[in-house]
């Protein structure tokens, strides 16, 4: 991926992660010291069902380049 290679443009990615799976998975990635680009920001939600489309729209409004909902 070119995410890490190009210094000029790094997309801002917001991830909504379910506390019980994707967020736990992200913790697990940490425990295993897996490396990924630092331009991903995670917002913890209690369930991916909690993610209101409004949140996604708001993220794009505020300049996010990508939104990931994971659960």
């Amino acid at each position, binding site marked *: 991926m070119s995410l890490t290679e190009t210094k000029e443009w790094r997309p*801002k990615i*917001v991830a909504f992660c379910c506390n*019980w*799976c994707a967020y736990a998975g992200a913790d697990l990635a940490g425990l295993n010291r897996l490396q990924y680009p630092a331009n991903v*920001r995670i*917002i913890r*939600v*209690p*369930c991916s*069902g*909690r*993610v*209101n*489309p*409004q*949140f996604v729209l*708001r*993220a794009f409004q*505020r*300049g*996010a380049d990508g939104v990931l909902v994971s659960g």
Partner: protein
Amino acid sequence: MVAAAQHPQIELLTYSEIENISGYVGNFEVKIRKKARSVDPLKCTGCGTCWGKCPTRVDSEFDLGLGKRKAIYLPFPQAVPAVPVIDREHCRHFTKGKCGICEKLCPAKAIDFNQKDEIITEKFGAIIIATGYDLLKWEEVYGEYGYGKYPDVITGMHFERLNNASGPTKGQILRPSDNKSPETVVFIKCVGSRDDARGKSYCSRACCMYTAKHVHQVLEKIPNSQAIVFYMDVRTPGKAYEEFYKRSVDEGAVYIRGRVSRIFQEGDKLIVRGEDTLLGRQVEVKADMVVLATAMIPSKGWDVLSKMTNVSTDKDGFFQEAHPKLRPVETFTAGVFLAGACQGPKDIPDTVSQASAAAVKVCQLFTKDEMATDPMVASVDESLCSGCGMCENICPYKAIEIKTITERIAGKQISRRVSSVNKGLCQGCGTCSVACPSGAMNLNGFTNEQILAEVDAICL
């Protein structure tokens, strides 16, 4: 076993399966199917007349096919409860509509062909999952070991049955093919364990020790016997374990470090081919019997139970503890605890420890008459709620119902319908708050305002 059966506080429900679990910590409601035994346990005296006279013989599951049982049977002589069961798939009364010998001969008139499955519903405050393990079906994966076509290539569990005084050979170690005493027995460890390609990547933990035990039993029971163990590592992390392993070596077991590549039959011998990796040389054993230490896998039905209890599993189907170090017997479903090999491969000492730990967790819960609930649950702003019921339909935990409230508006008493959240049932997922068209439903701790503030801050 007897202690559990005779305890006045314990009710045994054998031949029974969990149908459904609803509710929440402190208040689970569980449906249990009591499968038809076709024998009335209150009348049965366990005299054995029925299975003595039953004309149908089938392979005994309990003896893993090494022995036979009848269609009405006790799995083994010391079974608790000592009440037989009719296997309706094989019983002639059920397959052909005739026979009924057991019914005629039963002195207690306990046989009841008309018995039906019964479903009971009970309330529980806590649940312990202790569903244990099965063994990997190596016959389906390892062609190089013969796909199960050689009768004298058996698993450790078969070996246990051969060794057991109440087993099919009355405790003598005999080859299944010809009932001869084997002189050279090969043991292969890590069959299906530590095999990413066709088995499981994990270590099954108990095999090193039970293989050491098997080796000891061979050398003890069979004069002039040889026991050769193919292993990758000998793992003995337990009190008195290393000493136990050393004893089997002192007794004459030969340990070869290397994984067996192939087993095949030549005459009445099994040719076992490996590499002694310490020497870097190919070795071959002409064996009379081969015992495979096959991987432990979760007991079948784990997926169904996982859904019913909402307890997740790892990729192999073992139930996931809340934290591997700090909360090893708890799960993320409050009130559901884990004990034994259902959580991961385990030996007996560890299983017993974990079971007692889970019991303590349950007792801890039971010491209080009431318990505090997590306040991070859904809440309704009744002034905004239109009572449309969208949230009620979408709630995965059936925690929302519509109630009628009466309020005074402009001097008039008005009744209207609004949502109401059961704080015990609500798991705080927040799906309702997304479904709510009027913005009346919110989730404490993860409100719309909170999350939007987070989005704004994180995008800055």
